[in-house]
């Protein structure tokens, strides 16, 4: 007996009634079999019902491709019911990749040309949802005709279909540009909105179109003004705001038209101020309009007063009780923190408040913004805030926060001691989340601050005594104790509390680190070496140390074993050299290119791949010791570069001269003057740091030999897609006259593909009372910049 097929409602009921996945599948398979049969030889009158069922099943995730041809048949049917479901099916089941979709082109064409509006609407809807480039080309003239047809229902759809067509086939802009002028006179909100969207699309794709439409800025301003001032129509308003959708779209178009165009920007200035001050902000609709207004103000050539107004609006948003509003405020402020730094600075306290947000997406934004706002005058206060944030924030933000603090500390540390303290605190709070080079940086920093050796070793010793689990901290502490152990025992240091430390305590602590299961192999290495160094620093006999060292001579860990054996040998056979070899490290010059990045506001991720870490000091000491056993050593963690024994021998004999830098000096690339105008010169200097072949650092230097200052100087850069570019904040925005202190800015370019470098620069500034904008591509880039 053939079971009659179910009605759609019943099918849905049955599926929902299924208790298990298997049961559901059974029901569906059974029904699909029916549907297939019905498609084959069932009553065409019921075809639409069968397809509807199939579409439901498809939404649940089951295959429905056998329904594609049915969609075609239904679309071609004269019945409206058929067409409605057929087109819906087409939109759901057909996509560009299927061959079948081209077959609906003819049906769409017919439906566009026949007179029933609702049917034309269906056709346009389908065309604008799944229309491929080919279909768009075929049907462009049909749509163009409909643009000028009387009925508003069809016209509004035709306009948006044109938008879709241009996105698929940009050349069609030629067809759809001319009607815009007339369409802009529409009173119907839907058509007007569609037209604005169409114009926006045209302008975004073609500079010629952009220029063309700059003429209509006054008209747009008028439309928006009318919207805003005349009383609202209940039909189009939301919470007292007249048609916010239309307002937002107009504002967006104005933004595009006013960018870099002084004249247009001026025309819209008053209106923007009006919208910014008069929009009702009690509900989201008003705030949406206000938000768009702020974005527009910031992007065009607006008067300073207006810009300040915009930033203040964002500041108010930050205090809004609605989380969403706070979120968009933080995002926008982040975007403009480079260009309007001082304006954003004024809202720093509020931003810092936002760090306490419970919502992770908000606190992340607040973190990024806070880090961008740190400067030399607020660094102490900000670091304090960021440290407390670090203690309580969610784990996924820890790494970013830690690196951010360390970076800020590096850039703006008021004193070395503060710097050391800050790094120490970060390591104690979030030691496991810091980047690999933090250890190297700290040891270098400490090594370089001779007056702080005693202070550092004491602080580190106390920290270590409390907690030996945070690996980076332990490593630094071990290194420090090894180097400056004698200072630790001397007993007096003004800046810390008096600390009475016995030799035995120190040795015990290092042994504890060595034995702890929490210590990483690298950490153990540090501890062992530190013990060894102490053999020359401490006054007692070295039996305890010798014991430990000989025990580790049979350690299973290759690294430790090797070291222990070497140290043993040092005790036994080369004892006369021991003191010289274990002498304190002389200060090593820091490579100039290890500055960490500052994220551009747009790049949200703070946790990018780190630079090649600087070699930790300890590894260099090890390299010297390598010599004794004649082993060149396999790659040892963490030094990335291994000097050959030969080199080390030479330098060993040269002690206590400068230690070898294991990397060749960077090849120097000649500087390039790229721009000169009325006394303002722009020079580029290049560095390719060794060890990171994909990285190019460019320093842009702007110098002004003229009589008048250059003010509001902003430099922006663009590179081809395969490159990654980061622009750090410039040293200032005024290039003083008479060759005063130049403005410098650092560009970091990553070129993993070694593609030929192309660089475009855009300068905007005021000079001799005139605002200047220059966009140019840098020619004659030396090949060494990218090879």
């Amino acid at each position, binding site marked *: 007996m053939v079971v009659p097929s179910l009605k759609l*409602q019943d099918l*849905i009921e049955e599926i929902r009634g299924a208790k298990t996945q298997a049961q559901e599948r059974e029901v569906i398979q059974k029904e699909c079999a029916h549907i297939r049969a019905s498609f084959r030889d069932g009553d065409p009158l019921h075809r639409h019902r069968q397809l509807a069922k199939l*579409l*439901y099943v498809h*939404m*649940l*995730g089951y295959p429905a491709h056998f329904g594609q041809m049915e969609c075609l048949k239904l679309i071609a049917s004269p*019945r*409206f*019911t058929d067409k*409605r479901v057929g087109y*819906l099916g087409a939109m*759901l089941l057909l*996509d*560009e990749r299927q061959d079948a979709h081209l077959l609906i082109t003819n049906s769409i064409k017919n439906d566009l040309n026949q007179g*029933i509006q*609702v049917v034309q*609407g269906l056709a*346009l*809807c389908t065309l*604008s*949802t*799944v229309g491929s480039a080919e279909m768009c080309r075929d049907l462009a003239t049909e749509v163009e005709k409909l643009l000028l047809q009387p009925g508003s*229902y069809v016209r*509004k*759809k035709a306009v*948006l*279909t044109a*938008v*879709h067509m241009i996105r698929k086939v940009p050349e069609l802009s030629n067809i759809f540009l001319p009607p815009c002028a007339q369409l802009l006179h529409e009173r119907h*909100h*839907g058509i007007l*909105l*569609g037209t604005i969207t169409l114009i926006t699309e045209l302008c975004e794709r073609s500079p010629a179109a952009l220029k063309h439409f700059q003429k209509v800025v006054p008209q747009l301003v008028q439309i928006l003004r009318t919207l805003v001032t005349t009383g609202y129509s209940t*039909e*189009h308003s*939301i919470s007292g705001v007249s*048609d*916010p*959708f*239309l307002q*937002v*779209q107009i504002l*967006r178009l104005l933004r595009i038209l006013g960018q870099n165009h002084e004249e247009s920007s001026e025309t819209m200035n008053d209106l923007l101020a009006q919208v910014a001050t008069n929009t009702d902000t009690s509900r*989201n*609709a008003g*705030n*949406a*309009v206000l*938000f768009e207004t702020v*974005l527009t103000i910031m992007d065009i050539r607006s008067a300073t007063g207006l810009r300040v107004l915009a930033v203040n609006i964002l500041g108010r948003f930050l205090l809004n009780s609605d*989380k*969403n509003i*706070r*979120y*968009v405020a933080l995002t926008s402020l982040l975007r403009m923190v480079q260009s309007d730094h001082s304006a954003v600075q004024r809202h720093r306290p509020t931003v810092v408040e936002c760090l306490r947000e*419970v*919502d992770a*997406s908000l606190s992340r934004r607040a973190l990024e913004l806070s880090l961008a706002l740190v400067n030399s005058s607020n660094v102490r206060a900000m670091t304090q805030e960021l440290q407390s944030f670090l203690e309580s924030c969610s784990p996924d933000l820890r790494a970013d926060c830690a690196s951010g603090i360390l970076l800020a500390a590096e850039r703006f540390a008021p004193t070395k001691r503060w710097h050391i303290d800050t790094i120490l605190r970060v390591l104690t709070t979030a030691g496991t989340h810091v980047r690999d080079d933090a250890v190297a940086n700290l040891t270098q920093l400490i090594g370089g601050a001779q007056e702080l050796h005693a202070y550092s070793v004491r602080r580190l010793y106390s920290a270590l005594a409390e907690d030996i689990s945070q690996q980076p901290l332990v490593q630094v502490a071990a290194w420090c104790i090894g180097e400056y152990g004698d200072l630790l025992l001397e007993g007096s240091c003004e800046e810390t509390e008096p600390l009475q430390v016995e030799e035995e305590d120190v040795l015990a602590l290092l042994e504890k680190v060595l034995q702890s299961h929490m210590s990483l192999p690298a950490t153990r290495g540090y501890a062992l070496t530190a013990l060894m160094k102490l053999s020359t620093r401490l006054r007692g006999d070295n039996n305890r140390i010798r014991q430990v060292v000989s025990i580790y001579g049979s350690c299973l860990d290759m690294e430790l074993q090797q070291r222990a054996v070497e140290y043993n040998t040092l005790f036994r056979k080369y004892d006369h050299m021991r003191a010289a070899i274990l002498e304190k490290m002389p200060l090593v010059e820091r490579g100039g290119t290890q500055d960490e990045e500052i994220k551009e506001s747009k790049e*949200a991720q703070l946790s990018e791949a780190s630079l090649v870490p600087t070699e930790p000091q300890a590894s260099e000491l090890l390299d010297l010791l390598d010599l004794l056993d004649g082993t060149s050593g396999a790659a040892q963690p963490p030094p990335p570069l291994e000097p050959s024994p030969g080199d080390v021998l030479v330098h060993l004999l040269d002690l206590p001269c400068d230690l070898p830098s294991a990397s060749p000096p960077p090849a120097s690339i000649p500087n390039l003057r790229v721009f000169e105008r009325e006394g303002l010169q722009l020079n580029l200097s290049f560095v390719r740091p060794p060890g990171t072949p994909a990285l190019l650092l460019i320093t842009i230097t702007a110098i002004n030999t003229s009589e008048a200052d250059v003010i509001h100087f902003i430099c922006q850069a663009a590179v081809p897609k395969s490159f990654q570019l980061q622009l750090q904040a410039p040293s200032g925005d005024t290039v003083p006259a008479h060759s005063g202190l130049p403005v410098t800015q650092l560009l970091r370019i990553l070129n993993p593909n070694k593609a030929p470098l192309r660089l475009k620069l855009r300068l905007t500034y005021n000079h001799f009372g005139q605002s200047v904008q220059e966009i140019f591509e840098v020619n004659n880039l030396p090949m060494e910049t990218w090879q």
Partner: protein
Amino acid sequence: MQFMLLFSRQGKLRLQKWYVPLSDKEKKKITRELVQTVLARKPKMCSFLEWRDLKIVYKRYASLYFCCAIEDQDNELITLEIIHRYVELLDKYFGSVCELDIIFNFEKAYFILDEFLLGGEVQETSKKNVLKAIEQADLLQEVS
């Protein structure tokens, strides 16, 4: 807008409108991942999140999540209004709409959406006009 998804708290899809061409497989993958991400959000969190290179705007109405993917230059706050307007339209049409209405009348939900948005953009800002258009189409369906 690139796409809009409606799904229940159990992650069952109730409506999917795609404005960009993607294969069925890709759509399924995106849907699965996005649904997981949104459902993992706590109730007090803000309505916006970044996902892949898109901005996601979502809002929960009773047992249904309305989730839109917009592009970088789109305005998040107005997207919230778009979602809200769609819900209002559904509500007016079905009379106090609930998830069951959308399940059993999913075609109607699509038809209403298609009178409000076209090609990912807003086509009609008057609630009245949208509802009138649906009414007329429904009438035509009855007689044909």
